[in-house]
């Protein structure tokens, strides 16, 4: 330990000195470093001595390594790594050191033994004991748990805690999933193709549209070529439309009675049930305009009654 302190001292000084050097050109007074020390540092002999001491300190470990663990290469490597790191910390002097070390290896060792024999033996033994313990731990095959190696009795506690957390998270996820499921209840993502049911619905809708378009076509072609502004033509139109409507009205009735019973039973079901005169129907005034609106209908729409009825019928015709 004494050596360590010895070693540390020059290190620190060196560092300080470097800083001082860099700064000294600009601000020489910032760090009051004794000039004598600097000179000592520069001195080659002193440098050698420091290197030697440092090596001594390091060689302790190296020696131990070589002696004690020839077998476990991994630990050795590790140690060496650490060692080299330590060395590199010594202001890049490691290279030079090594060459020096080789030259004076025997000398150093002899010196080492001679100097601090009583303390070192114990230290090395302690070191070895620690190493053995460390190796034991390293060698231990750890069961491959998610938890990983945990040293002491905390293991159980941590396991419990983690398990609890996991369960909680699971619960939360389940709750959220459930909530999502509940929210999405009834929501169906349609298939990319048309199944038979959809096809059937589409055909029903198409039939409805075709029927309506045909009805519109018939109704509107009737009044072609007649000018509704002239009273004579207007009368004619009214007459024609009336006739056309009643014929149109009659058709779906018979049609539905005959054919629609099987497939498209819906056609004209309104007419089946309900009387033609609007006030006799069940839905008369049920949903639409109020009774008091009766006088609000413009007077000029005399034929409105007929047209209205007709349109209603034909609109239900499309059903």
């Amino acid at each position, binding site marked *: 330990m004494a050596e360590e302190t010895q070693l540390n001292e020059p290190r620190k000084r060196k560092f300080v000195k470097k800083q001082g050097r860099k700064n000294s050109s600009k601000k020489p007074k910032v760090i009051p470093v004794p000039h004598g020390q600097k000179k000592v540092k520069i001195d080659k002999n002193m440098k050698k001595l420091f290197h030697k001491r440092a090596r001594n300190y390091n060689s302790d470990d190296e020696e131990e390594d070589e002696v004690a663990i020839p077998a476990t290469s991994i630990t050795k490597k590790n140690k060496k790594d650490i060692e080299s790191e330590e060395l590199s910390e010594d202001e890049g002097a490691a290279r030079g050191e090594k060459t020096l070390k080789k030259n004076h290896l025997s000398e150093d060792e002899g010196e080492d033994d001679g100097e601090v024999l009583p303390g070192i033996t114990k230290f090395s033994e302690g070191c070895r004991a620690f190493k053995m313990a460390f190796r034991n731990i390293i060698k231990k095959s750890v069961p491959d748990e998610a938890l990983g190696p945990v040293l002491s009795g905390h293991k159980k506690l941590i396991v419990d805690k983690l398990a609890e957390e996991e369960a909680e998270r699971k619960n939360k996820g389940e709750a959220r999933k459930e909530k999502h499921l*509940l*929210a*999405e*209840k*009834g*929501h*169906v*993502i*349609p*298939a*990319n193709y048309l199944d038979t*049911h*959809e096809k059937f*619905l*589409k*055909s*029903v*809708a*198409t*039939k*409805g*549209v*075709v029927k*309506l*378009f*045909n*009805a*519109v*076509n018939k*109704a*509107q*072609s009737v*009044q*072609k070529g007649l000018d509704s502004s002239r009273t004579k033509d207007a009368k004619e139109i009214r007459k024609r439309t009336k006739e056309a409507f009643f014929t149109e009205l009659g058709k779906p009735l018979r049609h539905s009675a005959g054919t629609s019973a099987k497939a498209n*039973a*819906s056609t004209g*079901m*309104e007419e089946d*049930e309900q009387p033609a005169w609007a006030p006799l129907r*069940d*839905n008369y005034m*049920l*949903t*639409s*305009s*109020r009774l*008091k*609106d009766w006088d609000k209908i*413009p007077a000029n*729409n005399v034929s*409105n009654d007929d*047209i*209205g009825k*007709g*349109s209603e019928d*034909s*609109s*239900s015709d*499309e*059903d």
Partner: protein
Amino acid sequence: MRKKKGGVFIKKQKHQPIQQASVDPITGKKIPKSIVFSRGKLPSSLKQLQMDLRKLMLPHTALNLKEKKRNSLKDFLNVAGPMGVTHFFILSKTPSSPYLRVATTPQGPTLTFKIHEYSLAADIARSQSHPRCPKDLFQNSALIVLSGFVSGDLPLRLTTNMFQNIFPTIDVKTVKLSSCQRIVLLNYNKDTKLIDFRHYSIRLQPVGASRRIIKLVQNRQVPDLKNLRDVSDFVTKAGYGSESEGDEEAATVTLSSDIGRVNRASTKSAVKLQEVGPRMTLQLVKVEKGLCSGEVLFSEYGKPDGKGKSDDEMPDIQDGEEDSEGSEDEEESEEDGEDAEELD
């Protein structure tokens, strides 16, 4: 109208007059208007469904209706009077399933449908290889086709009536075919008692021309002629046949007027439908005489004995509104009185 505290906020649009004409200019009929809103908190997919329904009800609906948590049914009812709203679509969600209530304002009746399955418009567009949405698709109201509602019992008749009146009636004399762009289909299945709700867009295509010619006319794009030796090859060379030429025979119409550039009057055109969405499978669960209240005319889950018992059958829906609804009944009748005075 007095100022109400928690009124429904309807975003004003600059270009449009706030109040659309409530009467059709040509036929003189009252145009039904509707608003779509929700009761209670909806999950995101149902909110999307609500938006889809609003789009479906365009143009006579409030597309950007903002509702707040504190809005009660009464608030919507108060707005409905002056705005000329005739129908309510109310979406709600219970743990068991989502529900759709369709009601006539201000007196009812109310039909409650259980939504067994639904798909959003986005889902359907995603499932199609070429989803179609022309600009003017939503500018005119949809046509309605009801199919399969044959049996004459009350709930079904009510349903047909309700849905027929939700969309403006068309006058065959004056209607422009170009305004018929969409169709809503309600198909009742007698066996399962489920109603299929579908929404299609209508497309007309000239019949008789080859596929290439149709495409050339419709797309306004210069065709790729690099593989052809002569221009005439473009016309004469037979392309692969159209998808389902056989089925189209029944679905052809002769038009009375031109529609667009391609479909000329007095030529044959094929009617083609493409689904737009949303898609729903509904089951009629309950019919009430009033607006979300009143005598129960029909209930799927038991015999409608009276007013009190019906509420137990579907407690989940009524849950949030139970307290407010008690007062709504009184308010409703009061409201009617007010309306009458105003109109006089």
